[in-house]
Structure formats: structure tokens, C-alpha cells
């Protein structure tokens, strides 16, 4: 009896601790969001989102080219990383015990532990030094490498969540491996896959070092993928460390836009997923 009471008390204590820990984590996020919103909201308006940055002391100016540059490079990164990584995850899921799968899994884990700065340096040495110029393309490639391990590892987990009973049922009904993968496993895991991709997109959108090393930055509109390209994190980095109040304000505004873009992308993905699921 006593033992049970003790256990219950202990259980309650741990529950409280867990809730507290969760609360702290949420509070930190909420505080960051609140602070970014409070500092940034004053400068964000339509012209801020659509105009070129101005030098210190020149009124107005915005983050138009950096916003486009960021969306473009993250998009490019996703375009490269998503097909390759999902395909890789399917292989890992289908041949979990093969030697190649073991190597691939290991390599992916190692890649996920490599600082993004190193990824930037790698792409810098392979693309920028060889072609002789910084470009949005190089930035996209660097971001795709940053995204790759996140997408692959989460995708493998998500694919594994599709119950083996369903897979066996599919096989038993005479479906080929291909049919099983494309009509059962992928649709079944779609929600999880999208969450993984969104995580990777959010991670990539906030990267400074790999983008600075590969796409450099720009104060002008982008006219080709082979040019130095502005991005939000680099703009924030440059502005936040300057002594000028107007630039610092723009850095907060850009941070708010960055957070908002990621939020909007996430919510859109969730809503789309909900629609797809309801249809089925």
C-alpha cells in the first residue's frame, strides 16, 4: 500500500517536472517569437518587403532581393535534396539490413553532425573556386547538403511507421514492390515526410555561413542564377552587427519576415496535407 502511494507520489512529481520542462521549452520559443515580433513589426510593411536595401542614412529600403534570394536558394536546395533523399530513404526502408544501407545510414548521421560552415567551405571549394564566381546555384547546392540528412533520417523513420501488416497485405494481394511503395507506403507516410521536409526547409532558411560562402550577398536585384545573391540570414548578420539604428531595425524586421515565412510554409503544408487526407 505504502509502496503504491510512494510510486504515485513519485509519478506525480515527475509529471509535474515534465510539464515544467515542456513549459520552459515552449516559453523560450514564445519569448523569442514575442521579442522578434515586438522589435520587427514596426519596420515591416509592403515597401520593406519589395524594395532593395538602402545604405546607412538613406531612408526607406527593404529586403526585397534578400527575400527572393532566400526563397530561391531554399527552393533550389529542396528541389535537389527532396527527390534524392526520399529515394534514399525508400532504399533504406526496403533493404534495411543490406551493407549499403548500413553505410548510407552511417554517412547520413555523420553528415548531420558536420557544421554547416564546413558544408559551405566544401561547396565553396568545389563550385565557387572552380567556376570563379559566387552564385545562387552554389547557395542552393550548399543548402541541399544541409537539408539532406534531416530529410533522409526523418523520411526513413516515417516510412518505417507504415505497419508491416499492411505491407504484407499488399504483397499478399499480388501488388508488386513498386506498387506497394508508391500506392501504400509513400501515401501512408506522406504526412511525416512533409513534416521532415518542412523541418529541413526551416533549418536551411536560417543558415548564414553556407550561404555567405557560396552565394555571397548582393545589394541589387537578381537577374540570373550565376550571380552573387542576397539572403535573409546574411542580411541580418550584416545589419545586426552594424552600429546604425536603422540597419539594426531592419535586421529585426528581416528576422520577423524569416520566422513568418517559415511559419507560413509550415502551416500551408499542414493544411494541404489535411486536404489530401480528407479527400482519400
Amino acid at each position: 500500500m505504502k509502496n503504491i502511494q510512494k510510486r504515485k507520489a513519485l509519478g506525480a512529481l515527475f509529471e509535474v517536472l515534465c510539464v515544467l520542462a515542456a513549459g520552459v521549452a515552449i516559453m523560450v520559443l514564445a519569448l523569442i517569437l514575442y521579442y522578434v515580433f515586438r522589435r520587427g513589426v514596426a519596420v515591416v510593411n509592403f515597401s520593406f518587403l519589395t524594395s532593395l536595401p538602402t545604405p546607412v542614412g538613406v531612408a526607406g529600403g527593404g529586403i526585397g532581393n534578400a527575400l527572393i534570394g532566400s526563397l530561391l536558394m531554399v527552393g533550389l536546395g529542396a528541389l535537389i535534396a527532396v527527390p534524392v533523399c526520399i529515394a534514399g530513404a525508400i532504399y533504406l526502408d526496403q533493404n534495411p539490413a543490406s551493407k549499403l544501407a548500413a553505410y548510407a545510414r552511417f554517412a547520413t548521421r555523420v553528415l548531420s553532425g558536420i557544421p554547416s560552415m564546413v558544408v559551405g567551405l566544401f561547396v565553396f571549394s568545389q563550385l565557387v573556386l572552380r567556376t570563379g564566381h559566387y552564385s545562387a546555384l552554389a547557395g542552393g547546392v550548399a543548402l541541399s547538403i544541409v537539408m539532406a540528412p534531416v530529410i533522409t533520417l526523418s523520411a526513413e523513420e516515417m516510412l518505417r511507421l507504415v505497419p508491416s501488416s499492411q505491407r504484407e497485405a499488399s504483397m499478399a494481394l499480388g501488388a508488386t514492390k513498386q506498387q506497394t511503395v508508391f500506392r501504400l507506403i509513400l501515401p501512408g507516410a506522406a504526412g511525416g515526410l512533409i513534416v521532415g521536409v518542412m523541418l529541413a526547409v526551416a533549418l536551411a532558411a536560417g543558415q548564414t555561413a553556407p550561404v555567405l560562402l557560396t552565394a555571397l550577398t548582393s545589394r541589387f536585384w537578381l537577374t540570373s542564377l550565376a550571380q552573387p545573391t542576397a539572403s535573409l540570414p546574411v542580411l541580418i548578420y550584416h545589419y545586426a552587427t552594424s552600429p546604425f539604428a536603422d540597419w539594426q531595425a531592419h535586421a529585426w524586421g528581416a528576422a520577423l519576415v524569416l520566422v513568418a515565412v517559415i511559419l507560413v510554409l509550415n502551416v500551408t503544408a499542414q493544411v494541404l496535407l489535411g486536404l489530401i487526407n480528407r479527400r482519400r
Partner: protein
Amino acid sequence: MKKYALLTRALAVFVCLATLVSLLPAMAQADARPISIVLDGRELRGDVAPQIIGGRTMIPLRLIFEALGATVTWDEATQTVTGQQGNITIILVRGSRNATVGGRAVTLDQPAQIITGRTMVPLRFVAESLGATVEWDEAQRTVRVTSATQARTRSPVTSELRMATGGASFPFPLYTRLITEYAAVTSPRVLIEYASVGSGAGIRGLLARTFVFAGSDAPLTTEQHAQARPNEVLHIPVVMGAVAVVYNLPGVGSGLRLTPGALADIYLGRVTRWNDPSIRLLNPTLTLPDLAITLVRRSDSSGTTFIFTNYLSRVSTQWRSDVGEGTTVRWPGTTIGGAGNAGVAAQVSQIPGAVGYVELAHAVRANMSVAHMQNRAGNFVPPSVEATTAAAVIMEDASFMTHPTNSIAHNAYPIVGITWMLVWRDQDNEANARATVDFLRWAIIERNLEPFATELHYAPLPETGINRARRLLQTITFGGQPVWR
């Protein structure tokens, strides 16, 4: 021959007639079509349309004067129009063919006159007097006026050019301004991208040729010079900057006096309290609190640290032997690090009793207390743009390769540095070479950077520095030929 002569004559008559016939409709229409006036690509419209009188385009006087940035006054009694722009004065009298431009008498084809209630003046005369150029486009029936400012357009390249550059973060705010202004005066445009990645990364980018040119607060090391050979990296001075000694002393504002020895002792950890006799002696009028001195330094590799330690090495033998100079050094005392100028400024602002060093712009913008440093002549000088330029006024040409700390000029602030543009002497791309030389010439030699520099607390180079920059720019070559024209 004769046979042909007749044929030729017939042909000539035919051609003349044909031309005339084809021109007739245009000529008939001519007066019907309105004239438009385009100034620097923008159409000028007034309440009264421009008109051609006796072959001269007449335009409302206020419209043209004000569009060209001149002020106009009208004297009813003498019927006189006076337009003024800078040091140019134009005087026109209504109904008179006599006008004056800058004190010189000019006779006009058409006098200023009233048309539909507006005083109209001859466009070409007014525009050209104000330094603009005027072209008549018959096909479009358009007068194209290019103002004096627009006429300063530069075309170093034949098609739009983008150049990737980068380096020192210290001049970054100034360079973004220059880049924007320069893009506006070039046609086709020259778009320069400058990434604030630090002097070290700038030098590496230049050597790897990913940067066309690089900004740096530190000259190349001997090894880097060797790496550049057989080519050579020119150090073109751009502007100068002061490093302010900032502190947080409750009740004490700017103006704490420090000697080189006192500053060295503080950073060597030999003077540890603010009310130390050595500091009190220098500041008899201040009440210095009994507070421990907290030393703040840059935690990152920094040109500011280089200038600061370069100064301390020049004024203190012990500093030179124990610590030396560098973008990072082994600090002898207990120090607190701050990342970037902003980091140091934040640490100093938060800790009572803290002392640190930041670029002048950061000290001014963060409204921090700055020390007045004793210079070599014995004067206590606050950091300022003027006192920074003064440090290099008497410098010899070759000295522009190092920071002019501890200057002997009597009104100089002693902790100052130069920021350079590093440029290859022998260029490998013609367009880049032309744009680089033209940009630096426009910014430094033609002094277009000066208004922006002082506004942002950078010190323009003295005459000696500008001459040095010009000589260096003139040695830049492409394919063995000098690029400077």
C-alpha cells in the same frame, strides 16, 4: 559620258522630288504635333505647352529653371528674371534680346516673352547656361535635355557588370553607400557586391580570385605577399578610422584623460582600480569611483584589435615584448571578450567599471563615454574625424602601408588606422580592371566618398593619402597597358 550625265541629272531630280514628297506629310504635320521635353529620361510637363518660335523652343521659365535645380526670382519693376544655380546667375529681361550669364552679356534669337499668360524662355539658352546639354530629336519631336549631374555619367564598361568583392567589416556601411551611389552614376551600370566577411577572409578571397578586389584593415603578411608573386597586391588607402577607448564609470562622462602609459598599464593589468593615483593625477577635476577595472576585448579576430595593440606596442616597450600586435593577441590581464564592436560596446555598457575599445562610429552611435588620449605632442585629444585625418597629414608616401598610430602631429588622435582596398597590380579581366580603377578613382581621387564618410564617422584621407592612392591606381595594368586613362 553625255548620255550618262543626263541620266544622272534625271536621277538626282527624281531623288530630290521623292525625298520632298515623302517629307511633305511630316512637314505638314509638324506644327500640329506637340513638342515634348525630356530631362534625364523624365518628361517635363508644365501648364503651358512648349512652343517653337522662330526656330527656338520656348518653355515656361519656372519649369525649366526649377527642373535644373535653379532658383528663380522675378522682379516686376524691371521685368527681370534672375535664375541662380550654384555660382551661375542668369539674367533675362522680358522682351529684350540681351541677357547675362555669369556677368557675361549674351544676345538671344528670341527674348523672354509672355505666351498664354506665362513667361516663356528659350530652352536651349537656359539649359546650356546651367551646364546641361540639349539635343533635338526631329522624329519624336522631342527635346532631350541632359543635366550637368546626369552628364557626369561614367561608362567604364560596355555592358552591365557585376563584381563580387568583400572583406573588412569596418568600412562596410560606407562601402554599401558608395556601391549604391556608384551604380547610379554608371551607365551601363557597374554593380559591386561587397560582403562583410572580415579582413582575413577578404585577403583569402582576393588571393583565390573569388573577389575582384578586397577590403582590409590589415596589410598583407610577408607570406601572403610571397603567395601573390609574381603579381603584386596594391594597398590603396580609402579612409581612416579612429579606435575609441570607451568606459562605463557611473557619474563620469566623456573626457577621462589617459596617457599612453596609463592605458598600457590598465591593459597590462598593472593598474586595477579606477581611483588609482596614476589615473587620479591625470584627472584632478573628476571624482573617480573606487571601482575595479574590468578589461573588455574583442573575442573575434579583428582589425580593431590590430590597431589597438599596434598602438600599445608603439607606446609601451613592455607591451611590445610581452604581448605584441595582432588581430588576436594573448591578453596579459583578466579580460572579458565581446564579439564584434557591438559585443564590446554591450559588455562595457553593462559592467560598471568596464573599459574597452571600439570604432568611433560604434562609440558615437551607442552614446558611450570616450577617453581623451594624450598624443605624442602631449595634447589630450578626443577621438574625432578631424583628429583622425590629422594623424596622417604629415605622413610620407610609403607610410600608408601601415597604421598611422601615435602620430607626431600636434592635433592628432593617436589610435587610428587606415582601411585599404587590395587590388591586383596586373589585372586578368579587362572589364573588371576598368570598373575597379574607375570606381576607386571616383570614390577616392574625385573625393565622392567624403560627404558619406564624415557622416558615418570615417575620416577622409589627407591630400598625401589621396596622392598615394592616385599613384597606385595609375600603376594598375591589364595586358601590360595601364588601365587609368
